[in-house]
């Protein structure tokens, strides 16, 4: 996985995790472009799209979009489940998670992600939290 972004329906970035070295400017450009592309898509469209030379896998949960960029050989469906698993973990920790939880406890959201994904690969189900 190259990076993961969480953003709201209004296009506000809530969490960003980069697994490849990129300059701050590039990161900003990528997030801007991608957020625009995804927000323009209609609800029933498929969760995968080709974007530059990457595959984008995204899914919307309530007001938040979860979006992962994976490489060509990566499996789209399993990536979709990585997203779901992460949402489940957030849900378990916060107890029916909502966007506000992630805004106010952004550092926890990062910790949970780090526990779950390391270098962009699922590691395990985190037990101990903070």
């Amino acid at each position: 996985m190259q990076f993961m972004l969480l953003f709201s329906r209004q296009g506000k970035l809530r969490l960003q995790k980069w697994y490849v070295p990129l300059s701050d400017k590039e990161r900003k450009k990528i997030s801007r472009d991608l957020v625009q592309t995804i927000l323009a898509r209609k609800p029933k469209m498929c969760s995968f799209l080709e974007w530059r030379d990457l595959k984008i896998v995204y899914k919307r949960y309530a007001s938040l979009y979860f979006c992962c960029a994976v490489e060509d050989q990566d499996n789209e469906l399993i990536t979709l489940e990585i997203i779901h698993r992460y949402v489940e973990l957030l849900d378990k920790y916060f107890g029916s998670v909502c966007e506000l939880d992630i805004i106010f406890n952004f550092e926890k959201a990062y910790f949970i992600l780090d526990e779950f994904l390391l270098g962009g690969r699922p590691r395990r189900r985190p037990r101990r939290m903070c």
Partner: protein
Amino acid sequence: MPAVSKGDGMRGLAVFISDIRNCKSKEAEIKRINKELANIRSKFKGDKALDGYSKKKYVCKLLFIFLLGHDIDFGHMEAVNLLSSNKYTEKQIGYLFISVLVNSNSELIRLINNAIKNDLSSRNPTFMCLALHCIANVGSREMAEAFAGEIPRILVAGDTMDSVKQSAALCLLRLYKTSPDLVLMGEWTSRVVHLLNDQHMGVVTAAISLITCLSQKNPDEFKTCVSLAVSRLSRIVSSASTDLQDYTYYFVPAPWLSCKLLRLLQCYPPPEDGAVKGRLVECLETILNKAQEPPKSKKVQHSNAKNAILFEAISLIIHYDSEPNLLVRACNQLGQFLQHRETNLRYLALESMCTLASSEFSHEAVKTHIETVINALKTERDVSVRQRAADLLYAMCDRSNAKQIVSEMLSYLENADYSIREEMVLKVAILAEKYAVDYSWYVDTILNLIRIAGDYVSEEVWYRVIQIVINRDDVQGYAAKTVFEALQAPACHENMVKVGGYILGEFGNLIAGDPRSSPLVQFNLLHSKFHLCSVPTRALLLSAYIKFINLFPETKATIQEVLRSDSQIRNSDVELQQRAVEYLKLSSIASTDVLATVLEEMPPFPERESSILAKLKKKKGPGAVPVTELEDGKREGELNGGGDGGPDSSTLASSNASTPSPSADLLGLRSSAPIGSAPPSAASLLVDVFSESGSAAPSAGVNDDGFLSSASPSTASEDPAPPLPEADELLNKFVCKNNGVLFENQLLQIGIKSEYRQNLGRMYLFYGNKTSVQFASFSTTLNVQTKPVEPLVEGGAQVQQVLNIECITDFSEAPLLNIQFRYGGALQSITLKLPVTINKFFQPTEMASHDFFQRWKQLSQPQQEAQKIFKANHGMDTEVLKAKLLGLGTALLENVDPNPENYVCAGVIQTKSQQDTVSKRLCDLLAEQF
């Protein structure tokens, strides 16, 4: 504020975040942030030592501010201090800050590495994990240097906790990706491979990622992993859904691990050991069987996990491409998905089938789904799915279904999304050519293509149809007739005019017998489009006209009249004017015999790779279908029987060297040669069509692709000469004009044509050899990168060079151009200033008096205004003055200033970075002009 605030909630942080959220404007937000930054700074600087909690809280606030998109330039030290805290939560925040805001400050890196080292040797698994995460998150070279030796040891040590092992494996993988030279597995290899046997599934999952990456680089060293992976996979696949407890995800046993095992196996060929292979085939069959079983849960997570394994298994089957039975089963399974109600599955099935179509075992099976795929192309609501359908149609196309597929793709093109039209056009053109059974179908298809999507038909496509028509005499009459009919349409695309002009100029005689398409009718039809076309097309049409004079002597008078008209013979475009003059002269001086020789039908094109195929190869993408396969098909293709020609640059070059083609000759060097005896040969028409590849005449639109790949000439071992003394004077000549002769001496003449739009410019340089002797080792160097020119300039000949210019920011020095060549034995070197001045990037701006003065008043700061009073060297002629001011690139605003003796101009300078005020410099430039 949310109610949830577990354990160590930081109240101050929550208050701050909610303050920020309550800010009504960006300004208010910035104000609040600045206030907070000042507060934190004073806390960090204060005399009182902060306790761990406060430090953590402030560092966390800084992190939040950074994530909002603001710069943070302090607090790193405090974050590093947190790393050595014994409290998990404090350490954790420290590491998070470090991994988000990596600072290349070397001193800090040393401190960070020190803290990491301490944690790694702490034997506290949670601390070790935090340290490993930080290394993996940062992944910098410095960290690789510090830890690449240590981590493998942790990974294979017997007493390492499982959770730490997982982190170590993934951390090592990350370091290997960034600095493969620093991660030396050597002695660890076999122990790492044996992690596949580990009791702990989490360790296996993490280790597989590492092993997959390592085996891609060194397959031989890791090949023992194949049999281990197969037995592991077999155990998972045959387990019941409850066996693996913790690792069962929505009733699917270990989906992540299964996918990774299947992915690892794709790094290797099928196992040679019969028993291992048998076991693997069994696994794949079981996976395919499970896809047919009723789902154990209605949840989408269940089906996603299950299908993720299935698609990975199908990838492996396609990768092996040796089990016909499995390939066909895979194809049938994908066929079911094509009609699934989940869009995601339809998308993946189309994508996966695309690769299946290229296997000889499954190609026929894929073809049976053609109707479904065509239906998908027509009805899918999501453009990315339609794109996959189009790719699959392209991949499954062969002689038996080409007509159907091409016609479906054509009708899809009429409302296809703009983003994919060009690629679609190329694909249709390739399929039509590759599977053409009769050429009339091919010609119809391409002309339809131009009619439906003319704007997206690249030059390669219409060059190709002309090459094929020229090479196949059985289709020429049909092509002439069809293109004649197509041109009757009231509005037809310029590409159609190009093809029409070329084909009628060559083969118009084949349909001239019919009174409805008599020579004069043909000519009038073509000429009715003339005034709507761009310069290159008009030039092509003029060549077609001269060909008409040869084909149909009865049109001579009419055509000569057209050529003689002011709009041709005095055309402001030098290329068109020259053609008109030369063709007119040619038609009146040359005898019929000479005309017939000069304007003879084009010879067949030599066999070559199709230019459109080459173009599609450049566009990579999953739809591009194995190109080798396509080419094999092409070699058998019937069209190639007739020669698969592209422009042969060597013949072109030679003909140009002796007779520079009209399009290359812009300086009129050829005027020394008697016009009648050196007429534009057939090569001139060739140049029209293939101007891009003609070596001596790379005219407009030279492909930028080769720009950086071809190294710039390296001949300049001597330092380039300083600019000529008269260089500045030459430069000043070009401030108000774009075309002309830049430089001339006894040997060489350099002409310039240039055009500018906003911040972009394109300049053509023409180097004309005035002598009768060849210039050897001819090279030009610019203090920026240029595309190399031809190293030889024949006597009397001319070469052309194109420069693309972009104005990045305000500049005052013109770029220097150094030209070197050998004339006789002597090395000549000339350095000139290229006439690129800031005013070239002026956009004339029209504005009314009121607007002008309003803008004028806004420019109140001293550096925004410049004044220069100078003495005119020439008389003040109103018209000359106006011409010069317009030439400068500004708009001349009349009636702005009540005094008619005062001139008011306005323009905006476009640069890539910003629009700059350069008033002073402009003043200086202008002063030289009068």
